[in-house]
Structures are given as C-alpha cells and as structure tokens.
C-alpha cells in the first residue's frame, strides 16, 4: 500500500522515497506479514483440533471384545463397533468351497480396490491363521445400508438360483458373497470393509490390531 498515499501536507509524496526506502519497506512488510501468517495458522490450530473426536468419543469408539469360541460353525453374530454392525461369521467348509466357485462373477476378487487390513487381503478376506472366521463391517459400500445375510447355499429369490450364500442389500440390490466381496453389475463397486482386529485367546478384539501376533 506504499503507493496509496494521499497527497497531503502531513504525508510526503511516495516518489520522494528512494529505491532503498521502498525496498526496506517491502522487506519489513513482508517479514511482518510472514510472521503474522504463522501466528494466524497457530491461532487457528486449536479451533480446528477441537472439532476432531474428543476423549469421550474415542472411549466410546474404543475396541470391543467378543468371545468368538461361542460362535457355532455356520453361525453369524453382529457386534457393534463405532456405531456400525460388525459381522462375525464362522464359515463351514462348504461355504469356503463356494467362495472359490463364484470368483468369475465378482468385481474385485483380490480386494485390490477395497478396504481391509493387509492380513485380510486374500480370497477369504480373513486372517490366514483362522481362515473360516469372517470379520467384516456389515455396511454396503454403495450408500451405507446394512445388507441382509443369505447364508443358505442354493436358490434364493434375491441372490439367484445358484447362490453359494452371501449378503443382499435391500436398499438398492447390491450382492456380496460370504467373504463380503461384491458381485459384478450391482450398484456397489467395492467389497465390504474389514476392520482391524486381533485375537487374544478366545477373545477377538475388534478395532485394534496393535501388537498383533
């Protein structure tokens, strides 16, 4: 604003200032503005941070524990974690076999486009140490509905005549297999996410995989 002076008795004409004067003025203005910008950024930080999850939210969203030894073969339970249904399904050998047979009709067989921890990025989408146990957020990747389980192998009005079991989303008709992998040609395009989990004896900890064996 150095050239914005009003011609006035109290204010010298700006062209009376030498080149050095203008340079010095620009330098001081620049460095002050720089410092001020840093200060402004520091002042904004606490306000931005205050909107992230509080200790209460973190505690409510803390990992949940479940004794998975209670689950029978072929049985499914739902556990709530961070307000989402987490599916725990102990798959039978027939179900595991069925997963292989339908690979041709799936959109993301190897889960390359989908969200899961590294240890669950495989065909079964489970921990190789316990391949039969599916741990998955039961949330459709299309618009967030909760798909209905269709565990029976055989004809099903929604899943089709040669269903190997799976999940069907009642909202917009997306279909998933028993590993949560999405079928081709349905609204959803990615597999249902797998949360971080770990085992502590008979207990599965959902939401935490720190110190995972």
């Amino acid at each position, binding site marked *: 604003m150095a050239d914005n*002076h009003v011609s006035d008795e*109290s204010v*010298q004409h700006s062209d009376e200032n030498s080149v050095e004067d203008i340079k010095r*003025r620009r330098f*001081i203005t620049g460095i002050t503005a720089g*410092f001020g910008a840093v200060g402004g950024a*520091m002042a904004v930080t606490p306000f931005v941070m205050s909107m992230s999850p509080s*200790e209460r939210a973190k*505690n409510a969203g803390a990992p949940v524990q479940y004794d998975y030894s209670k689950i029978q073969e072929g049985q499914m339970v739902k556990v709530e974690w961070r307000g989402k249904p987490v599916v725990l399904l102990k798959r039978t050998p027939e179900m595991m076999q069925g997963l292989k047979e339908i690979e041709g009709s799936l959109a993301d067989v190897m889960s390359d486009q989908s969200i899961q921890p590294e240890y669950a990025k495989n065909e079964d989408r489970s921990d190789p140490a316990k391949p039969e146990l599916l741990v998955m957020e039961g949330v459709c990747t299309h618009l967030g509905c909760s798909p209905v389980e269709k565990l029976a192998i055989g004809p099903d009005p929604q899943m089709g005549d040669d269903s190997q079991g799976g999940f069907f989303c009642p909202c917009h008709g997306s279909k998933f297999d028993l590993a949560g992998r999405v079928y081709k040609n349905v609204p959803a395009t990615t597999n249902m996410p797998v949360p971080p989990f770990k085992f502590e004896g008979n207990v599965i900890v959902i939401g935490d995989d720190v110190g995972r064996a």
Partner: protein
Amino acid sequence: MKKLSTLLVSILASITLSSTAFAAGGGGVTLDEPYINMSDKASLQNGAKLFVNYCLSCHNAEYARYNRVAEDLEIPLYQLKQNLMFTTDKEGDLMKTTMPAEDAKDWFGVTPPDLTLVSRVRKPNWVYTYLRAFYRDDSSPSGWDNSLFEKVAMPHAMYELQGVQSLVERLPIDASGKIIDKDKVELDENHTLVGNAIFELSHPGEMTPAEFDKAMADLTGFLVYLAEPAIMKRKTIGVYSIAFLLILMGLCYLLKKEYWRDLH
C-alpha cells in the same frame, strides 16, 4: 495527564494486589501450604495411587478419565490397569466410584461430593490442611471429627497411614488466620501442628508424621492436577506463544516506524 495515568495505574495495582490477597487469605482460618511441583511425576503418581485407594472408594471423580491421568502422569497402561483401575476395565472410562450414591447417603448422611474439582473449589492449602486434620472424637456419629471442617460427616479414611490423633488445643489466631505467638509453640515428636490445631498422636500409623505430610502433599498435588489437566501443558504453550508475540510486536513496531517516517 501523565499524573492522571500514574494515579490510575497505582490505584489499579493496589486494588488487584489487595483483592488477590483477600482471595488467597480465605479470612480467618489457618491453612498450611504443601510443596507441590507439577513436574514431579513420581509425587503425582503417588498421589494418584493414594487417591484411587483411599478416596475413590466413596467419592467420584466423574469428569476425569483413567487413560488421561495415565498419559499425563506418565503411568504405563499395564500399571494403570493393575494398580489404579478397580472400578472398570476400560481405560478410557470416567473415574467413578462403585458405591451407589443412595447407599453413601444412608451411611454418611450426605452424598460424598465429587472430587474432580475440589482443589479449585476449596483451594490446595485447604485440601492439604483438611486431609491432616482428622482426630478421634467419640461423640460424633462416625467417631471422627476434623479441626478445619467441624462436624464433618466423613470418617478418617487414612487413619491406618496417619495413626489416630486427638485434639490437644486450638491456638488463637488473628483475623487473617495467622497464629498469634507462633514462635512460642513447642512440639515434641508426639505432637503435630495442623492449621492452628495441636494434635497428640495416640496410636502411631504406618507412616511417621513427616511421611504422612509428604503423602498428603502428593495427594493434594494430584488433586490440583485432576482439577485442571490443562495445567500440565498450558504454561509451556504460554511461554512459546508469548515469546512469539514479543517478536511479532517488535516487527510490528518496526513496520509502524517505517510507515510513520512519511509523516512530519
């Protein structure tokens, strides 16, 4: 004009000073001052241990969370779970007592107050003096009384540590709570002075009076922390922000000088 400003500043200063003195004095009670150091983590951890063992069984600290205490006091999580968490197994939970409030009211006549903020309501010196001022009084329902808080409903929670003491006399004090003729007070190892009360130790506890005083200073320190967890951080942030602002002010002053060079 100069004179007026000077007058104003001096009036302002004297009022601030006198009112601070008023706020700190508490008016008419004698309080002892504990040595508290917020960077002495061992002392605060000891205070935390005393708190969960002796206070939390009846009192809540319902705004504080275990994991936050552990983090601020540098207590490892496994130690927290083993030594401090008796009421829950979830480390992010609030520090709540297991005693139902109605039962407590039946037993003591009053619901034990929440202790999260006690050191801000009562002030640390009061807490420190109160904790050491319980004495045996068979005429009271609980069998205990307190020379700072007369007819208190609470029994002495830490008599195992302190031992049992009886009240010998209360020394006369002036309006500001100072003991008159403090120089003339003489104590042997069986007598202690807490506030303006002299106690005689009739049954010694697990700790000597000096050890117990130190333990209560630790506990008071923990309560100061508990009332305002931000106290651990705010002074450090304060030093940096003010240092930054001083530099910025210097720069702004140069900038002002620079622009005002135009004027004559």
